[in-house]
């Protein structure tokens, strides 16, 4: 066990995976000598050499396209996209190729790769270093989409992603990279894909969230002593429907919190699943607290990202409904 932050946790997990399995290849812009702009791949080049830690030219389509060829032919690439905002040049490869290879070949090929990418705001990165694009991927059958909210889950989900035979979009909330340390085992362990975590048991209201918003939600409910059930989804696709419905039915009051814009954000799907399957249990509207439907602004990002006040407003709204 060590007290480490998310960057360290990811770095160690990558290191262990590379040490154990020669098929694991890391690739991306500045992942080698620089160790990644957030240092997640620090020192791996020194340990594993240029064949296994590949500094690539500046083309995300090329990175993902090449990685998918590697994955189809026996390797286990872990590709980094420097900021999630820069994944879109590879969007066609992701939704039209990677997500559909297994299907279109009748299961004869698979693309077991991992695409790691930091997302979310709070680092004064403006429009192009702050986006939370998980919904673009979660609408695409064939992909798995996960996001950890703490160092432990980061490491454990990465191992599960490594074991997955399906392509995994691994979204890392960059604001949390160094925000907190927690106990993480020194050996390899797994956090199951498709399983949410119950972070807090409570009866009055359910808060469903994930990734970058988890610490904000926890802080809000703790400071205000809200008797809340708090769910950290961890996997966005496929979502843990059991956990979602169980908590909705238990409390009958649901608040969904995410940083991405509201319209067709992941909260829409959560809300729709509940409205479809647990409507009779509800005592209040299903309320979403989200980033706004605007590009991510450079100034005033603190107003863009849901804060404790906005979360408490929503909680109070459903509690007093």
């Amino acid at each position, binding site marked *: 066990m060590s007290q480490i932050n998310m960057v360290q946790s990811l770095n160690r997990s990558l290191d262990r995976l590379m040490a154990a399995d020669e098929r694991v290849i890391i690739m991306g812009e500045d992942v080698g000598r620089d160790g990644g702009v957030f240092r997640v791949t620090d020192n791996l080049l020194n340990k594993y050499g240029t064949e296994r830690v590949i500094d690539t030219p500046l083309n995300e389509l090329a990175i993902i396209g090449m990685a998918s060829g590697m994955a189809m032919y026996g390797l286990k690439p872990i590709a980094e996209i420097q900021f999630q905002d820069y994944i879109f040049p590879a969007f066609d490869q992701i939704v039209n190729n990677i997500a559909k290879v297994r299907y279109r070949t009748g299961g004869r*090929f698979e693309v077991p790769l991992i695409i790691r990418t930091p997302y979310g705001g709070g680092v004064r990165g403006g429009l192009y270093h702050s986006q939370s694009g998980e919904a673009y991927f979660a609408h695409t059958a064939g992909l798995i989409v996960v996001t950890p909210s703490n160092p432990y889950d980061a490491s454990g989900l990465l191992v599960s992603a490594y074991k997955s035979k399906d392509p995994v979009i691994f979204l890392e909330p960059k604001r949390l990279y160094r925000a907190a340390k927690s106990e993480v085992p020194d050996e390899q362990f797994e956090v199951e894909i498709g399983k949410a975590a119950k972070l807090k048991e409570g009866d009055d209201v359910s808060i469903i969230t994930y990734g970058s918003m988890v610490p904000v939600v926890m802080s809000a409910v703790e400071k205000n002593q809200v008797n809340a059930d708090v769910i950290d989804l961890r996997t966005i696709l496929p979502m843990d429907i059991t956990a979602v419905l169980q908590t909705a039915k238990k409390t009958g009051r649901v608040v969904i919190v995410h940083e991405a814009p509201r319209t067709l954000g992941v909260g829409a799907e959560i809300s729709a699943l509940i409205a479809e399957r647990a409507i009779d249990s509800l005592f209040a509207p299903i309320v979403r607290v989200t980033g706004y439907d605007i590009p991510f602004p450079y100034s005033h990002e603190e107003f863009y990202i849901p804060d404790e006040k906005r979360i408490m407003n929503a909680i109070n709204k459903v509690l007093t409904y």
Partner: protein
Amino acid sequence: MGDEETLREMAIVGNLSNEQAITAYKTAVLARTLDTKIINAQRQGIIGFHVPAQGQEMIQIATAMLADKEDLIFTYYRDLALYLQRGVPLSLIFDQMLGNSNDFQKGRQMPDHFSFKEFNFSTVQSPVGAHLPLTVGAAYSMRYTKKNGIVITTFGDGATSTSDFHAALTMASVYNLNVLFICENNGWAISLPASKQTKAEIYKKGAAYGIPGKRVDGNDLIGSLSGLQEAFDYVRSGKGPYLVEAVTYRIGPHSTSDDPKKYRVDEITDGSEKDPIKRLENLLLKMGVVDSNFVMTTKAQAKESVDKEMEERMNIPPTDPLSIFDDVYEKPTWIQEEERRDLNVSD
């Protein structure tokens, strides 16, 4: 290129035996016959769609002739003769074209989108050029895992404009990967003539990446073989990627949905002077390698086997509708399971 020249070229290739030439001719005739059969089947509503390969058979056959078994080939959607020359049986081709329950791909893709893994082919997708970056990853994997063989890929002139082409050549060059890029320049991307696709000569496009290139006469077996040989040698020797532009000719429409009269009025011909099969046929006849009787028999046999095979494969039942939920993931998630039940109930 006149026949005299062709004969001289043949001497240069040297190692093309009469048997090989005859096999190539037979494949070409079979491919053409199959193609025509499919077009007719499409008209009758038996097969849903087709992109004819007519006119492009010879560069495809030459590619398959020079490729080793262990070479991995990423084709595009217009490579019928390439599959046949590499040994893919008609039965498997029809199974895919019909999308029946024998189809390896379970009827998931449109006709002409094959995945003959057993013959070391990869998988065809519709987005033009999108397979190209994959070839680079596959080549990386082969080198890394110390597998023998090179990666070969085919694509059209239109594909050279795509971002995927740029991505693939960038990576192949930077990592010095064994990828042989073969552009089947048939002069058209649907209605856009190659002259409006780019102002550069396609085989020179490698210059932007430090990749050598060469133009070959894709309508001529000997020209294709001799041109390709150099490219294969280069890539096999580990010198890195190579770009071949095979100049060829799309005899028919872009696809069975296309009406070339809209855009090809001023130069519609039957393509016969460029027809690679006629050219090979004439050469073989002239050299006395075959006689006109052989030509007739070859064509008749091709027709017979194509007709017979299609009739047989048409008897194979379609796939189970409920199988559409398989292979989205290794194991269906609760979503696909639920939706499968939904379909089962509403059915």
